[in-house]
């Protein structure tokens, strides 16, 4: 197991030697000690390291029940039989794998910022996925474009594949809307689990429907709202023709202190609205700046939010 991690790490660093690696080895070492936490207990498909609703084989005792013919003799509590002279079957909590889904917004608007929001989104996704992989969870990563055909990996040995996928994922001009992407995602992934959606929420059609769809799946949903400093505090001056990089929508503005103030109000309102929308629907909302280091984000922020432990 150890060697495979090393090889994955090596290959990642080799892969990303030309460009910046999404995850540094140090970061990976830190991540290995973490685990993803789900507030809900889901049923997995395979045996894993997660407690399941199902009783099964694990070291964790769950209950006793009367032996009935046909039960596996291996689970009879002989000590209890000796004391009570009755056959009891010792039940253990079944440990199953956790389904961890990451959905990354790959619309053109994510390509902004330094580093770009998309890159930061990929780093967050990679970090969380790596944690999941280390804990043997089932990790599914997809972008909006590829929401219908996500990459599904399991086990630490797949880290290389996962990182490779993320490394090569580009922002796409043909990215579908958030609503469409989530709809496809939901159709494709019927299982339960943790969903982390990393997006800037800059969707003109709105994000509400998409999130509602996810909520309806009864998944443990995390929304990582990523915004670049340029969006949070625009440095624009003068008379400008603002061009939307996605739909080429054009807005003429004469930037003034008043306008900037109004923008800030609008932005705060937008964030607040998103936060309150999420809170009402038990979606964990996490706001992230693209120029923020992801280490404190994972170690403090997400830990506090209960996504990682």
């Amino acid at each position, binding site marked *: 197991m150890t060697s495979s991690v090393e090889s994955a790490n090596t290959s990642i660093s080799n892969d990303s030697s030309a460009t910046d690696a999404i995850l540094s080895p140090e970061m990976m070492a830190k991540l290995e000690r973490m685990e993803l936490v789900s507030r809900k207990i889901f049923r997995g498909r395979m045996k894993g390291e997660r407690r399941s609703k199902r009783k099964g084989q694990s070291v964790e005792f769950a209950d006793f029940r009367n032996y009935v013919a046909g039960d596996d003799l291996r689970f009879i509590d002989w000590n209890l039989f000796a004391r009570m002279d009755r056959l009891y079957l010792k039940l253990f909590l079944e440990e199953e794998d956790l389904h961890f889904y990451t959905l990354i917004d790959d619309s053109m608007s994510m390509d902004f910022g330094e580093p770009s929001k998309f890159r930061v989104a990929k780093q967050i996704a990679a970090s969380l996925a790596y944690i999941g992989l280390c804990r043997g969870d089932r990790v599914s990563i997809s972008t909006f474009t590829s929401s219908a055909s996500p990459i599904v990996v399991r086990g630490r040995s797949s880290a290389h594949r996962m990182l490779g996928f993320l490394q090569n994922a580009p922002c796409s001009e043909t990215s579908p809307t958030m609503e469409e992407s989530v709809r496809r995602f939901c159709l494709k992934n019927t299982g339960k689990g943790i969903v982390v959606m990393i997006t800037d929420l800059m969707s003109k059609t709105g994000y509400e429907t998409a999130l509602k769809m996810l909520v309806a799946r009864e998944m443990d949903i995390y929304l990582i709202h990523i915004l670049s400093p340029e969006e949070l505090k625009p440095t624009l001056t003068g008379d400008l023709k*603002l061009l939307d990089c996605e739909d080429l*929508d054009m807005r003429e503005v004469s930037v*003034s202190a008043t306008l900037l103030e109004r923008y800030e109000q609008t932005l705060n309102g937008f964030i607040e609205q998103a936060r309150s929308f999420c809170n009402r629907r038990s979606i964990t909302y996490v706001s992230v700046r693209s120029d923020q280091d992801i280490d404190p984000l994972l170690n403090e922020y997400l830990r506090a939010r209960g996504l990682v432990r």
Partner: protein
Amino acid sequence: MSWINMLTPMQWLLLAAIPPAILSLYFLKLKRRESLVPSTLLWKKAIEDLHVNSIWQRLRKNLLLYLQLLFLALLILACLRPGWSGLNRIGERRIYVIDNSASMQATDVQPSRLEVAKSKAKALISDASSNDVAMVIAFSDRADVRQGFTSDRRRLLDAVDSIQPTSRTTDANEALRAASGLANPGRTSFEENKDIQVAEAVPATVYMLTDGAIGKLAEDDLGQLKIEYIPIGKPGTENLGIVGFAIERDDSQKENIETFSRIINRGSEHVDCTASLYLDNNLVDASSVSIDAGQEVGLRFELSGVDTGQLRLELDHQDALMVDNVAYAAIRPNRQVSVLLVTAGNTALEKALQTGKLQQLASLKIENVGFLDSPEYEAASGDAQFDLIIFDACAPKKMPAGNTLFLGGVPPEDIQGDSRWEFGELTGPALILDVNRTNPVTEYLEMASVSIVEMRTVKPPATGTVLMTSDVGPVFAVAPRGPYQDAILGFELVRPTAQGVEINSDWGIRRSFPVFIYAAIEHLGGGITAASAPSVLPGGAIHLTLSSRSNRYDIVDPKGKKVSIDRGVDGRFIYTQTDVPGVYEVHSEGLGQAVERFCSNLFSASESDLGIRDTIDTGADKIAATGATIRARQETWRWLLVIGLGLLMLEWIIFNKRIFV
């Protein structure tokens, strides 16, 4: 509403360039910079309320432009200094008296004294308070009111600009009289031997911009005027000038001519130079001139074999005033008057016509009375071959084309009748009581001792003049007949009878008779008597006596400009357009050659003196120069205007840059 233009055309052009500049800035502003943003979602929301009403938004965008254009329009309006003729108190009265005589052409101060005077006057006008009224007078030997009292500075400045240099002499008194008269119109009125002040005397300040060569001012002319003398020019400016140039024909040898000139050195140093004499622009003689400081020398040239032409004397010496370094003279055309005498025989008359002077003046043809019936006479009288025809005790059947002098005989009936000549019956004896001294023909006649046996009264038409009056009535008169003149004497000297001649008057043996004949031929015939053409000061009037053989003459000035004049009835003419120094020629309509010449010369010792006077003498008082002490108020509104415009542009740029703290 009245307007005063305060800017030059160039400044107006600059001002006119500003509105397009603002407009172009406005259009530049519209050309927005493109900026790619992740999403316009939030921006859209942020500017959502601004888009509620886009028309208002557009208006608001334009509002700034309108405000700026309005500001600019007001600025331009302000430059026109709009105003009403209100009831404001009239401020100080100022009179700018600017000398434009010949000495002001001096170049001791650049570009010339006159230009300096004009710029000083303009500075004074610009510095005057807006309530002040002012007038502009240019003066040389005469005053020229260029602009009456007005507070319109633009008109005053234009009036100053219009002043041109002249070659005339200086007489400030007329200018001051004009100033005083215009400043205080109707100062006094006489009524029953009382001196009544009809208008309140308003004091006015006269700014005299002159080099001071104006002589003494008459104190009486000053009235309420306060004179500020602003001297123009550098003190001690040296100058050499010709103050006299004349020619004389040698009486013994007609083709020899002598020229005399007087050259004055108005400087502090001895001057050696050359004087060159040109005849019709060809150098004919030259002489070196050596004059001590403050002295004058005479210069004489002799020319032989010269019949006619123009002479020019030039000093090749560079000094501040060049106009007095050239003098002109002309030899008059040696023209003789053609005179026809028709007589039955008159010894006194014939003797009078044979004097040397008259021989030079006139060519005489004597015919008997019978000649009047000949075809030659018909032809000669029809096409004005003679300047003057003298009918001695006879008369033609028809008046000839030409001036006539009747001695005795009754002219034909075609000049008698209603409002024409009237002749009385023969009566006698008679005595001449009065002679008209104002007419050149009878100017020098002494007729008191002349006895007349019989005479007729001669009553000229209304247009005529009686020249002699006897105890029985007018006896000699002159009157125009179309372009000609008829002079008719009411008695003859000798009367032809069957027995011979009978003496009718003893005038023929009196001294006054040849004088009369000479004057009559000179003035009625239009003869030229002197070799030297008359010379006048520039701008002066010249009296010309022109032959009756042509009715129309052209006067060509030194610059070649031609002025056509109609010969007056009496053949005399006064010409005043002599501002350009040089030789003027009079051409007869048909003849190519000049029939008369005259010159315009600046022969003025005072104009040639370029020294600056410290004071102006007004008799009792002396007015000191105040040029140095006149406070010039420098206007700064133009600069403020420029700064205002600059601030406007800066405001615009700052607004566009959105520099905010």
